[in-house]
């Protein structure tokens, strides 16, 4: 149930599954082990999620793969980890906040690498020494992380065949070393039998299901291609780079082009140029890059040129916390442009939804001849998940093409929908100049009041009056209380509501996919019967809360539950906040 577009659909059951953190420092290979663990889980018919975390070093820094596997779709990380398996402890204590443990957690570490840090032991986790490096050393040509993979996978309850198959398929080096590492895997698996206290997944359904293993960044890139994007200008920035890197070869295969730009000012203007040429175009960036693109986004508004900018949000302001997630670009995305500049702002609410939302963004941008900003974030972008094969929503926007006729062509013709037929260079009889200067219907620069008002109205109307259908939000559950959220936080909210049995509690969920233009009427309809609203988001200022209060009439006394990054909002803390809120607001309503 990666995406639920049916209004009022009950919030699903969620299996807590098992949460495993694989940690280590330079050269320990925990990311590879984590990726293979996820692949093996997919082969075994499980769902899963792997979140990466690492220190600031380019290579050799401390790193951890945070993996959660379950029998039902994994919406987010759990509140705690069942197992922390460390290949070594070099600075791994820095992840103490990210890898919460408790008395029922198991801490596995190599005794040759010293004591487990106090930061982890303090929670009361049970420490068990397990020899990893020495085991690998005993099998010439093998790697320690494969011993760890065998151990972690077996503890999770994955069959050794799934782990072996994952390793074989990923192997790109010489065959002799593959045999050694298969042995290391088996040795790790054998070591697992001495360890108890880690919950094991029940056997999966054999991997027959049609599932995808995909990261949020790949998903957004894929959605873009499916929506018709064939030109990308790229300037690297954490955590959006993988999106662009995935697209470089992928675009070439579908006949498109990716070009590396000299900066974000160039990348956004390059895609505007390509789009003017009739080719659907996209770039991806993070907050600092989005800031640089602002002026050109205004050009796309004014000249009515469709472009898509994916903002993989990270901690801000300024350079902020580049490799950690935060939902703090919302205010900037919805209102950060000089002038009255209506634009589309969409937010993907799960890794799988990065496909559909980006695809929809391309569709809307093309159809409405406007810039679209897609908000993703580091938590989705750089994480991988096993998801049900996402259905193709079929979005592929087509621009309203101009046809040469007897009368002179008016590029910015005032039509009832606000959408004017657009000429593509190379077409005879339709030449015009796209302009960031205010213009009349013909496209001639004009500072006259009449032209300015007409074009402002037109640019606003084409977005405001468009029928966005059911895609504007995911509305789930029913009840007098409504939780409103967006983006990756939706996963945590969904799980929280499932845990709380939201239907019994009387809480519904609204996850907004279209943030601008805000669908105030649909929002009012979705909130019918609601007396209280709680807005949940991962930022410091309550950006969604403030935006909604400025734009819409929310029932009751709207409350905000928010926390900035870098830690994700955990389902447990969200559930607690909801429980308290429902309790408090219900008491308030009862006469004393």
């Amino acid at each position, binding site marked *: 149930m990666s995406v639920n577009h049916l209004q009022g659909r009950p919030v699903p059951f969620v299996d807590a599954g098992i949460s495993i953190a694989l940690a280590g420092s330079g050269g320990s290979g925990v990311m590879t082990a984590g990726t293979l663990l996820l*692949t093996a889980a*997919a*082969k075994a018919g499980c769902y899963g999620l792997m979140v990466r975390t690492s220190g600031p070093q380019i290579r050799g820094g401390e790193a951890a793969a945070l993996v959660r596997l379950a029998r039902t779709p994994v919406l987010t990380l759990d509140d705690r980890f069942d197992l922390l398996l460390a290949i070594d402890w070099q600075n791994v204590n820095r992840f103490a906040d990210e890898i919460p443990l408790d008395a029922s957690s198991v801490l596995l570490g190599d005794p040759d690498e010293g004591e487990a840090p106090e930061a982890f032991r303090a929670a009361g986790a049970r420490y068990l020494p397990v020899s990893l490096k020495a085991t690998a050393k005993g099998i010439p040509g093998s790697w320690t992380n494969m011993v760890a993979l065998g151990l972690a996978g077996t503890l999770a309850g994955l069959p050794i065949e799934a782990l072996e198959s994952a390793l074989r398929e990923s192997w790109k080096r010489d065959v002799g070393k593959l045999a050694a590492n298969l042995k290391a895997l088996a040795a790790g698996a054998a070591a697992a039998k001495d360890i108890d206290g880690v919950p094991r997944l029940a056997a999966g359904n054999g*991997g027959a299901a*049609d*599932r*995808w*293993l*995909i990261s949020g960044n*790949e998903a957004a890139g*894929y959605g873009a*291609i*499916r929506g018709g994007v064939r030109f990308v200008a790229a300037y690297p920035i954490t955590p959006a780079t993988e999106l662009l890197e995935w697209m470089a070869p*992928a675009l070439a*295969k*579908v*006949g498109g*082009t990716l*070009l590396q*730009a*000299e*900066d974000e*000012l*160039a*990348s956004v*203007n*390059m*895609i*505007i*140029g*390509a*789009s*003017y*040429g*009739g*080719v659907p*175009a996209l770039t991806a960036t993070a907050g600092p890059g989005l800031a640089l693109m602002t002026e*050109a986004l*205004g*050009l796309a508004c004014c*000249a009515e040129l469709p472009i898509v900018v994916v903002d993989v949000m990270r901690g801000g302001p300024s350079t902020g916390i580049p490799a950690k997630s935060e939902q703090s670009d919302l205010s900037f995305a919805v209102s950060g442009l000089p002038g009255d500049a209506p634009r589309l702002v969409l937010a993907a609410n799960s890794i799988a939804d990065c496909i559909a939302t980006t695809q929809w963004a391309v569709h809307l941008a093309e159809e409405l001849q406007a810039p679209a900003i897609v908000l993703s974030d580091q938590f989705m972008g750089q994480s991988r998940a*096993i998801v049900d*094969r996402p259905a*193709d929503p079929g979005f592929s926007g087509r621009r309203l093409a101009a046809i040469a006729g007897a009368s*002179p062509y*008016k590029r910015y013709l005032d039509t009832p929908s606000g959408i004017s037929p657009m000429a593509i*260079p*190379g*077409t*005879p009889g*339709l*030449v*015009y*100049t796209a*302009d960031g*200067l205010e213009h009349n219907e*013909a*496209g*001639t*620069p004009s500072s006259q009041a009449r032209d300015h008002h007409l074009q402002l109205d037109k640019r606003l109307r084409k977005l405001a009056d468009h029928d966005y259908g059911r895609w504007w939000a995911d509305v789930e559950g029913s009840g007098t209380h409504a939780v409103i959220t967006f983006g990756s936080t939706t996963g945590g909210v969904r799980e929280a509501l499932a845990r709380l049995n939201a239907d019994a509690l009387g809480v519904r969920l609204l996850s907004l996919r279209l943030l601008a233009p805000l669908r105030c009427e649909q929002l009012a309809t979705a909130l019918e019967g609601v007396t209280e609203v709680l807005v949940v988001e991962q930022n410091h200022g309550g950006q969604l809360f403030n935006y909604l209060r400025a734009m819409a009439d929310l029932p009751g006394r709207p409350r905000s539950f928010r926390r900035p990054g870098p830690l994700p909002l955990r389902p447990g803390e969200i559930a607690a906040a909801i429980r308290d809120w429902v309790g408090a607001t219900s008491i308030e309503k009862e006469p004393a």
Partner: protein
Amino acid sequence: MNQPAPPTEVLTAANYKSVYKPIWCPGCGDFSVLSSVTKALAILQVPPHEVVVVSGIGCSSRIPAYTSCYGFHGVHGRALAAATGLKVARPELTVLAAGGDGDGYSIGGNHFLHACRRNVDLTYIVMDNHVYGMTKGQASPTTEPDWDNKLSPGGTGIRAFNPLVIALASGANFVARAFSGDPNGAAQIIAEGIRHPGFSFIEILSPCVTFRPEQREWKRQAHHAPVAPTDDAARAARRIMTDDGFNIGVLYAGDRTPYPLNGRSPQLTPEQLAAEFQT
């Protein structure tokens, strides 16, 4: 709408002019550059609708709408970025970028360097008048250090930048200097620049009679380069760095391989592409 004149069997310069009367000061060299651009296109006989003129902001950046070609009047300093995206996405179009010295060398300086080294098959025309005209006469990167103006009384004290040397050092494949007072010569150079593969940079000295009336004297200073174009970058560099700044002609025409333009046909459908995600 830049309404083109009805085409005849042979296109003349007039076929590349729009119905709009340029809003440039009477006396401005840009009138002449516009004339040269239209003459160059007439020399090449390329249909107006297959040409796009891309610009940023500034007096000279108003040029797209004055042609009967497709036009793109974007934001300040980013003409080359937009032109690059357009050309790479639509290689079959003839793409000209045009603008002034402030737009191209100051706010757009980084794009200038990288457009030269990227060597996409574009022609970039800079109408250089050593001044910001649209904002009423401030110093630009090519302004003399002692030129007194309101924003920098007594002059900036900063030496002027040599765009041709920068272009050459950055890898432009065609480097030329033209003069607005030599409209037919400039037209020939522009036509040559468009024909030349890769990134062609044409600096056109184009006087601003409003803020730099002394530039009317340029017509007495400009002269044809006494040498033939070279494909030797070192020789061209020496030539450019030692000339008087009024040497008119093609100063370098290289043979660097241009940026490869997309001619690939799709090998996979998006559905087939998804095979890599299948578990």
